[in-house]
């Protein structure tokens, strides 16, 4: 039971690389066959004629003839090169694909995932004199699309965020993103890929809110004949966990990402390798050396251009130990904290995951833990002060069931237990802000495959707080997506 988009899931670059390479090779041969007849005859023939003529004709300057022939060869070679160049330029080496993701969402309340803990009746008074502002909940919990954008980020002190949706709780249609993916086989073993998202959003005060982002810009090279090892350079998918594989709207079964997707589905810059080992490729190992972590651009940590000399090392080892299609993996990353001006303190993540395909049912699960020390010391520098993070626990378990080839159902449970802070709470002036998250989420979704180009998806997300001390924040979301692929 195969969904139309299934070929893009799993290892999309692998799936694309070989057919495209074959296509390029075939077309290259075709171009050579179609080369104009102006091409010179084989050099051997005029040489034979020349020898015959030399016997019968008057003696000539042999050296002069050689020079003429050399010049002729040089001209012919130049002409051949020019012809090849023209032919190469005519080849259709770039494939264009992508999708349009159109949605409708309706958040509960004001669409904001956090409340500020302030005033005389604080839920957590112990933080009152350590942080200027304390927030409870999960800012990204009321997600409305596969990008992970929240219905509203709210209006809170001390920060002027780009609130990309800013619905203030109103239901709204939305073009989540228009994606264009360019792939080009540079050789039978090299594939270049670029993915560009166009995101129409509201402007404010005469500024244009629309933006464009490049989330993939990579070159994949397969150095071995088997094609089971790839080396990537550029801006690529992370190697952490499994959710990066369906981070895009056209890859995702449902609409929204998990609560921990912000840590694993970013696209860092650097170098990456991946090897598939063993019979039936039951072991896969991947590693990357990148500027920063695999956090997403939606999240505080993301740091596209590095601000420190140290790099982040990440990797994943997965095995399929059983006969049926069940993959179990372990991931980790370690490196200087994103946005830090030095490489002193490390930000790290570890996690385990599983991915199973059982006929029409897919099972996905991931657990992750992480931390970052944040700023220490009395000097306050809001421009370059990294966030601190205690990701105590986070994860999800998702079931994707294609009931019929047309209709699919999704159920997912999420958890995120985290503390994020900006500034040093032990410094004399205290810290700026503190986010305390004790969040759980239950998601139910439906997916209708109209045809190979049209998919309709809808989800209801119930966000809740599991700590008795946390306030209940009304921030459920209904969201939907009409996906048009091309």
């Amino acid at each position: 039971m195969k969904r139309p988009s299934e070929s893009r899931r799993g290892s999309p670059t692998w799936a694309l690389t070989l057919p495209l390479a074959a296509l390029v090779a075939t077309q290259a041969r075709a171009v050579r066959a179609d080369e104009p007849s102006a091409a010179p005859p084989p050099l051997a023939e005029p040489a034979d004629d020349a020898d015959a003529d030399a016997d019968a004709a008057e003696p000539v300057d042999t050296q002069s003839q050689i020079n003429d022939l050399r010049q002729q060869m040089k001209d012919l070679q130049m002409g051949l090169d020019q012809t090849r160049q023209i032919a190469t330029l005519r080849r259709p080496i770039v494939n264009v694909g992508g999708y349009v993701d159109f949605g409708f969402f309706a958040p509960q309340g004001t669409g904001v995932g956090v409340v500020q803990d302030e005033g005389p009746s604080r839920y957590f008074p112990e933080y009152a004199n350590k942080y200027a502002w304390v927030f409870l909940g999960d800012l990204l919990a009321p997600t409305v699309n596969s990008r992970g954008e929240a219905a509203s980020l709210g209006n809170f002190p001390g920060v002027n965020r780009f609130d990309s949706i800013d619905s203030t709780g109103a239901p709204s249609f939305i073009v989540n993103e228009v994606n264009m993916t360019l792939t080009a086989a540079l050789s039978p073993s090299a594939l270049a890929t670029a993915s560009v998202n166009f995101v129409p959003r509201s402007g404010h005060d005469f500024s244009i809110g629309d933006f464009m982002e490049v989330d993939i810009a990579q070159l994949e090279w397969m150095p071995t004949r088997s094609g089971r090892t790839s080396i990537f350079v550029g801006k690529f998918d992370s190697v952490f966990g499994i959710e990066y594989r369906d981070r895009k709207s056209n890859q995702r079964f449902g609409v929204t990402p998990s609560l921990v997707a912000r840590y694993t589905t970013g696209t860092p810059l650097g170098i990456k390798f991946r090897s598939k080992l063993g019979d039936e490729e039951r072991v896969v190992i991947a590693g990357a050396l990148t500027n920063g972590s695999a956090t997403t651009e939606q999240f505080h940590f993301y740091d596209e251009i590095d601000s420190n000399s140290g790099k982040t090392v990440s990797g994943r080892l997965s095995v399929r130990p059983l006969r049926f299609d069940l993959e179990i993996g372990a991931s980790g990353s370690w490196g200087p904290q994103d946005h830090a001006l030095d490489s002193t303190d490390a930000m790290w993540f570890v996690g385990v995951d599983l991915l199973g395909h059982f006929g029409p049912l897919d099972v996905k699960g991931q657990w992750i833990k992480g931390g970052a020390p944040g700023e220490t010391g009395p000097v306050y520098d809001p421009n370059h002060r990294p966030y601190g993070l205690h990701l105590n626990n986070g994860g999800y378990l998702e079931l994707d069931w294609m009931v019929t080839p047309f209709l699919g159902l999704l159920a997912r449970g999420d958890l995120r237990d985290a503390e994020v802070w900006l500034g040093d709470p032990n410094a004399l002036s205290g810290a700026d802000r503190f986010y305390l998250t004790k969040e759980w989420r239950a998601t139910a979704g439906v997916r209708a495959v109209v045809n190979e180009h049209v998919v309709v998806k809808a989800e209801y997300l119930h966000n809740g707080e599991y700590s008795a001390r946390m306030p209940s924040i009304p921030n459920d979301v209904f969201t939907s997506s009409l996906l048009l692929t091309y």
Partner: protein
Amino acid sequence: MGRTIERILVAGAAILLSALAGCHATDNVFCSSAGCGWSSTDWARVAALSPLPDPPPDPSNRYCNDSSAAALGASFYFDPGFSGNTTLKDSIGRTVAAARTPLGQPANVSCASCHNPTHAGTDESSVPNTVSIGAGIYDVNGQQTVNAAFYPLLYWNGRSDSLWSQAIAVNESPFSMNGSRLQTYWRVVDRYLAQYSSVFPDYPNTQLTVAEATAPSGKPGTTSGCQAGSATEPAGDAFDCLSAADQTVVNRVFVNFGKAIAAYEYTLVSRDAPFDRFVRDGPGSGWISPAAERGAMLFVGKASCIDCHNTPLLSDGRFHDIGVPQVGDHVPTVEDCPPGSSTCDCTPGHEAASCAPSGAWAGAKKLVAGKFQRHSSWSDDTSDGGAPCLSTEIAVPPSCGSEPDPTLKGAWRTPSLRDVALTAPYMHDGYYQTLDDVVRHYNVGGVPGAATVFQLPLCGADVGGACMDAGAPAPHLAVEIKPLGLSDDEVADLVAFLGTLTGTPIPPLDAGAPHDAGAPHDAGAPHDAGAPHDAGGPSDAGPSQ
């Protein structure tokens, strides 16, 4: 498949049509229970700010809700005859060029001079009005007496724990009223005896026993015991030279004088502001403008005002260093208070109770040393535990400790925002003239460097003298004072909101003042040197008559 697509299309069309047709009704479908634009959390916080209840009872003053005591207190409040002569001194003993009257002349000020009840109990008469002017010049801006009964601690620096003790302290302050308890005694006995006896029947003994008691004024001196005729003691040390029994009689009248004023101040409550009606009737009720409603959201949200301006009083009653510079005419600075000074000692790390710029630090020390605390023998309920410790986090005695909380250095009491549009200038030293200035102060996180006055340098190899260890609790700017990121529009919205907090004005008192009763004490004393308080009104109280 075809039927499913058809259903999807029909459902989509239904959503679209409902959105188009619903208009306001659609809004209501998607709004929270608190109202459109309001989160339930924010509305709950706003709703907690209104209405203003009755002031909490003061166990140490059983007359605080006694209407007869309030009427007598009103007479006292408007009577300038309780003030002494002009000293031309400021709060740290420096000679000033001018006050309300020339040096040595009756200051002729009443409580109402600097606390006009019909104008939120604020000072409209001091010129300039950054700090208040009486017999001398004060170090701080006059605070409201309207709603003063709600505070657990009084004064900008919290040095009194009851309204009555605050009133009698002001009465004897040399740069405020410069009265004295003996003068007050005589004023009460001469002019208010019948009414006083009616209000305070439990204290019938108002008769002094010795000849010295005929001295028209006097209050405790700096040297213990009787220094008869001493030029350095107030009024030749007349009070200290009274017998203990007579001192008790005088003190009792003096305390009851304060309790009557406190009873009057218990009636000065600002109510029924447009904001109160807005809370009562809900969002969109029209009692406040849309800008003010947005300002209310900011007040409980982004601007974080309710961190300190909370409860229906719109004050937490606590003390915070919010980064206001200690500057201005007659505002003493740390530089004005060198180590060892007898009038103002701000030795770094060892500030004395006289260190006026230290704010609540000095207030805490004075509160502990005060003779008229709420749990003193002058209380009407000595079982009362007294006031909370003066702290940024008010605790309950006896956990106060011997030394004040060091974070009180540079901290001042959170003022109520009720009637705030009437109480300019703002901050403890009148640093800002407009509410727009005040909001912008918070928006930028205070004035840079203003809060570092009492902050010792971090200890290190290159630091000599007093210092503190990194990470140690230390006096500092309140952690909430950080740049807020409010836009100009949001600042304007907040100012609009603050304008909705003005309550129904306190009505002027009737002219028939009972304090005219009784013959003036004719000892030729300065206590009645001021203009007799006639029925024409409370002297310079302005529009109160």
